[in-house]
């Protein structure tokens, strides 16, 4: 009984902790947000810890979450995707190296890649410093806006809830 109560307390405090931190929210001062004056129309997350910020004109930015960046440790190299290619949902768009690990980054929804964040070439640490802002990885043109309604794409709240479940 006591242990059940304690677990519930731990879970609640973890949720509270996450909500207060909410570090997986998009950085409001960087391009993925400021691309349009009003900010992105939709921000979604994947269970593989990518985020996608979609704007009205069908442009979207892709990066990895703060949770993922922290888990990776110091990023030392980002393999940048080549612009101009059509990429299906789930295809690998990039790979990030940190502490001897090569981690694959996947395309959350189908689209064509219009630009890679060239700043990462010389400053891979931007992924650690500001994963949801200056550390964006790819800019894409979404193929079909309806794809954003895919239930496998999570809201910020759902994503952080899934993290809490993984870590309890």
């Amino acid at each position: 009984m006591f242990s059940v109560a304690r677990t519930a307390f731990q879970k609640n405090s973890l949720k509270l902790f996450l909500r207060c931190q909410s570090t997986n929210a998009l950085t409001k001062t960087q391009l993925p947000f400021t691309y349009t004056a009003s900010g992105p129309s939709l921000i979604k997350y994947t269970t593989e810890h990518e985020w996608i910020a979609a704007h009205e004109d069908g442009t979207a930015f892709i990066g990895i979450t703060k949770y993922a960046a922290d888990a990776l440790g110091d990023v030392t190299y980002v393999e940048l995707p080549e612009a101009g290619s059509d990429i299906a949902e789930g295809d690998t768009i990039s790979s990030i190296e940190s502490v001897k690990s090569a981690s694959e980054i996947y395309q959350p929804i189908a689209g064509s890649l219009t630009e890679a964040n060239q700043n990462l070439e010389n400053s891979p640490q931007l992924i650690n410093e500001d994963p949801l802002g200056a550390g964006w990885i790819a800019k894409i043109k979404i193929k079909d806006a309806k794809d954003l309604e895919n239930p496998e794409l999570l809201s910020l709240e759902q994503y952080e809830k899934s993290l809490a479940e993984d870590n309890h």
Partner: protein
Amino acid sequence: MCSILSQIIRRTVSSQLISIPPRNIKLRWLHSSKVLCKITPFDIDATADLNDEFNELNSMYTSMFSKSNSNNKDVHKVKTENSLVDDINELNDELNELCSPYDTRCGSQNVPKISGDDLKTLVENSGRFIMISLSNNPYFNLALEDYIYNNSGKASSITKSDNRNSFVNSERLMFYINDKCAVIGKNQTIWKELFMKNLYDNGYQVLRRFSGGGAVIHDLGNVNYSFLTSREDFRREFFNENIVKWLREQNPKLNINLNERGDITLDGYKVSGSAFKIGRGKSYHHGTMLINSRIDKFKGLLKPDELPNVKWNCNSINSVRSEITNLPLTSTKQFIDICIDGYKTHFQDSNIPVLYCDESDTMNIEIRKVMNKLMSYEWKATTGPPFEVQINTIDTQLTLTVEKGIIIKSTIPIFIGMPFQEFSRLSKALLQTDV
């Protein structure tokens, strides 16, 4: 200059880089008089070039392009020093070839090997297993590992996060021993890390793996382990912590530890190096373990941090140079057995099947495709970021910009458009500098 270049280019066609290792598999046995040496493999070994069949030709070009011939006599020095050590080593090599723990001539041909089709079923479905490769072909072993990684749990669709439970109790452990080769990390620049010429002259294959990290040298005295688990359960230190624990249980006197980079050390010398790959729903940690490697032969194969007269401007991953030694076990088989016992105990499952595979019995189209990729010049050499290299020669400074393996800018225009691989081969003859 042009005609000299074209002459040299003609005899340095890049075919060497994509040659398939000989099928005649070298066998091994524990060293009767083990040479336990602790060296830095990236020391430049002046003798490493002596077997070069092109030495005479190279030194001819060197003398044509150098102001003084005084250095050339070194090149012609015959390998007589250390001849006793060499004799002992030769003897060891012969002994090694007599029998091997996983030796096709010593009874393991009777071990049933899994077929390509059975491997597919095994890998795609859930369930733990241990796989021991009897092949010493590094291309096959890396392709097999990649196949298991890419297809693990496919049938039970572990790739969908909702079904992540299907990966529970499906960890995979694999062992393989590669014949002489240098293996660089996914995001490295081969010429920056390796003395390519010394490697080829001494019969080493050069491979780029799919995981991160730095360059390592393999031979038949080094055993590779590879542990695959779900992305959620991935923890960098997990497997090496266990190896240390299992080895200490075996021999409490061993002074083995994990260093700050998570690598296993013996008396402070590195005996093992690790690298990781993390993808959708899955991850693996693989590592090398030096048991009775001919570490004395590793000299002059990996480049040191800095070489005189050469400056690299390059974002690729740098290797962390470390002094290495062998783990004092009797054989690679002993290490594998210790790990298998400890592994079964850890998962409290004595029924984890141990399966064997080799290149002739365990092949499928996907493994072959990955082998082809690993052998391709494009994957080995031209993958990776663009770089700039500055070379100071006796009378000039040469700066080259290289993209996808091709020199696109050069302060000496003749090199523009040349594959950097070829430039690298010529550099010693032309510039007296290994680039």
